[in-house]
């Protein structure tokens, strides 16, 4: 048993309530989820199915011409497992119409463009489907800033954002999702052969233990080193968290007036809901 272990049944119950109420606050009862074939989006699709029923969840597959075929077949497995309607929108023409004439080869730029093209499609479909875009970023990714701002980092609400990757796996097993999806290496599939852990240079198992102490328990660097974490690893991860804070907050608005949006115009999103 790990100190990060959760009570999955309780978490599923809380998140179903969260999804129903926060989507209900917008006057809606349907969800749009981009399925990548990975465990995070599979868990979100399963939670949405529990919250709204399969007929109210639109799964969307958004392949690019260089995406791994495995991603599509795993997404199909999830779709079948949950009995969802799936829409397939190939984003190749959309992305290439910009990437090719501009001759953009940089992996990071290409990856960001693909993530933002997917966002455009999901948000457009949400109008037709009359549902909200439900995000799939977990706490590990959010804290490391391992996402594209306004791409996969854009969503109307997010049930996984306070769960480390370890906890998402636990929830996936509780929700009895297909083993193939749970067991494969996490990947953003933005370029061939990409894996999260290969790109980050550490495993989620390692970094989850560290982030849990650093963020949830507020350990100092000295306390972490005393517990056996390598100082370089601690510093590297702590620096990543600080450097990516801009992805976790709303952009600043310059205050000029007596009462300003973003500063002292203090209302929840659920204002009068």
């Amino acid at each position, binding site marked *: *048993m790990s*100190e*990060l*272990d*959760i*009570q999955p049944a*309780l*978490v599923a*119950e*809380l998140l179903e*309530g*969260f999804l129903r*109420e*926060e989507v209900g606050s917008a006057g809606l009862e349907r969800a749009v989820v981009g399925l990548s074939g990975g465990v995070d989006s599979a868990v979100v699709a399963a939670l949405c199915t529990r919250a709204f029923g399969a007929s109210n969840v639109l799964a969307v597959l958004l392949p690019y011409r260089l995406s791994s075929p495995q991603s599509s077949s795993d997404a199909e497995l999830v779709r079948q497992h949950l009995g969802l309607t799936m829409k397939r929108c190939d984003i190749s023409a959309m992305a290439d119409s910009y990437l090719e004439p501009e001759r953009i080869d940089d992996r990071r730029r290409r990856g960001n463009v693909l993530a933002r093209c997917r966002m455009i499609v999901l948000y457009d479909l949400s109008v037709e489907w009359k549902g909200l875009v439900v995000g799939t970023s977990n706490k590990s990714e959010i804290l490391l800033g391992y996402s594209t701002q306004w791409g996969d980092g854009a969503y109307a*609400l997010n049930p996984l954002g306070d769960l480390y990757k370890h906890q998402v796996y636990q929830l996936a097993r509780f929700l009895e999702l297909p083993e193939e999806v749970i067991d494969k290496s996490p990947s953003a599939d933005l370029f061939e052969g990409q894996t999260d852990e290969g790109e980050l240079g550490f495993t989620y198992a390692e970094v989850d233990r560290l982030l849990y102490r650093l963020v949830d328990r507020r350990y100092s660097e000295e306390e972490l080193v005393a517990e056996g974490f390598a100082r370089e690893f601690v510093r590297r991860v702590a620096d990543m968290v600080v450097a990516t804070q801009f992805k976790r907050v709303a952009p600043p608005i310059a205050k000029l007036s007596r009462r300003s949006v973003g500063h*002292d*115009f*203090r*209302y*929840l*999103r*659920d*204002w*009068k*809901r």
Partner: protein
Amino acid sequence: MARMDCRLVVAQTNPALGDLRANMEDHLQRVEAAAGAADLILFPELSLTGYFLRDQVDEVALATDDAFLRPLLEKSRRISIAFGFVERSREGRLYNALGFLEDGRFLAVHRKVHLVTYGLFDEGRDFAAGERFRTITSRHGRFGPMICEDMWHMPSAYSYFLDDADAILVASASPARGVDAPGPGLASQRTWNVLLSATALLYRTWVVYSSRVGWEDGIGFGGGSRVLDPYANARAALEGLEPGALTATMDSAILRRARNELPLRRDEKPWILATELARHVPLLGALRGEAALKNE
């Protein structure tokens, strides 16, 4: 005063944030359903307004003579009603308050003393703090009102204990948190259960806990409303995260028996507390001529 049994309804609600009309409608329906079969109904903290109000605090505040409250006051001729609202005082201050209505009037208003201003809470910015813990003498018994964090500070329950209150009424809006294994259940709820039980045992009193449910911008509220007898046995409890209602009868014979078996109030020596307090509160020490104690 001879003690009577009190038939109780505890409402576990999900208020709409800042929507006074919708919440009043819900209050009136629940009160109507309880009237006749119960003597008292308790609602959660800020039940008429919702919790994370921020700049809405001023917009939803009500003076106790506001016409908007009249329908609820009318209903209090048939059943006593304790409900949460934002009170606008005569001086214009805004309080996180629990109104106690009986016989068509405000019998009492408890203003939250211990505003929470740490972690995810910012009440000290939005509300003025209450200054007293006063037992309410109702036609159905003597009640000690508290709002959520008030219970974490001993002077609240201790004051009501000295007053020989029959029951402590706790109105709460407690964010659900702590889902770590093995549990069981929410860590926040387990903590509350310990606190409620300890209070029932230490002060030999009924403890009535009304706690809201629902979500406000990603923060869920934990529910877990319950009624504990003076032995800390749960007489009724809601374990889920859904709105609901509890019924229980606060039996005066049980209270009498519990206090006879373990006469904690009879044997309490409040003057010892006064002496010890004089060491911590200089003015009190000076009044008692005991300032020297501070250096002992």
